């Protein structure tokens, strides 16, 4: 079975600073997909970034980037130049072996202060 672990229930950062959210996972597959989703208080789950395991290059989307360490089964999210609008719950997820279900971690609540 695949599992996802987010060991930081809460994180805080100041505006314009950089913060890294941690995620580790377990899977027996060699090819899989990893995701970071953001869920603000409005509840809408928003895709932040995705990573294909067969790609060695770390994915980047504007201020968001990942540090994907396949051997260590680690998938951290780095947010640069943090903004007030980045405050939300962040979920790390892996797509299951059937390619149907996302398996989520318990989330990290990120607060941003001015």
């Amino acid at each position, binding site marked *: 079975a695949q599992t*996802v672990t987010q060991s930081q229930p809460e994180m805080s950062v100041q505006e314009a600073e950089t913060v890294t959210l941690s995620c580790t996972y377990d899977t027996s597959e060699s090819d899989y997909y990893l995701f970071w*989703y953001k869920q603000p208080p409005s509840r*809408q789950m928003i*895709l932040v970034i*995705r990573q294909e395991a067969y790609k060695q290059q770390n994915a980047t989307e504007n201020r968001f980037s990942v540090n994907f360490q396949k051997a260590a089964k680690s998938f951290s999210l780095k947010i640069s130049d943090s903004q007030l609008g980045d405050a939300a719950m962040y979920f790390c997820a892996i797509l299951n072996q*059937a390619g*149907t*279900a996302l398996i989520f971690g*318990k*989330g990290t609540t990120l607060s941003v202060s001015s």
Partner: protein
Amino acid sequence: DAGVTQSPTHLIKTRGQQVTLRCSPKSGHDTVSWYQQALGQGPQFIFQYYEEEERQRGNFPDRFSGHQFPNYSSELNVNALLLGDSALYLCASSLAGDTYQETQYFGPGTRLLVL
């Protein structure tokens, strides 16, 4: 480009009642997945529908059932509601057969409260 929509936004029911939640997928998508998110937790997969068939099911009892219509929209039905069914129900859509089929896009959710 129309995103994933869900209705209703909020719902209050009593134990033992039945509820139906609705989801319209993102324009161009043909696959719908349902998730249950308890307060403070990550979403849990309920099931996925593709070509009007249940493609895979998570660890949820038969009280949870679904349907997909020819226009790809979907319903989630929950019978004999329990207090523990109180949660945010999320619908996600994707496109099967696409190189990015694995990316699921979520709707705003339906908040269900069972009293």
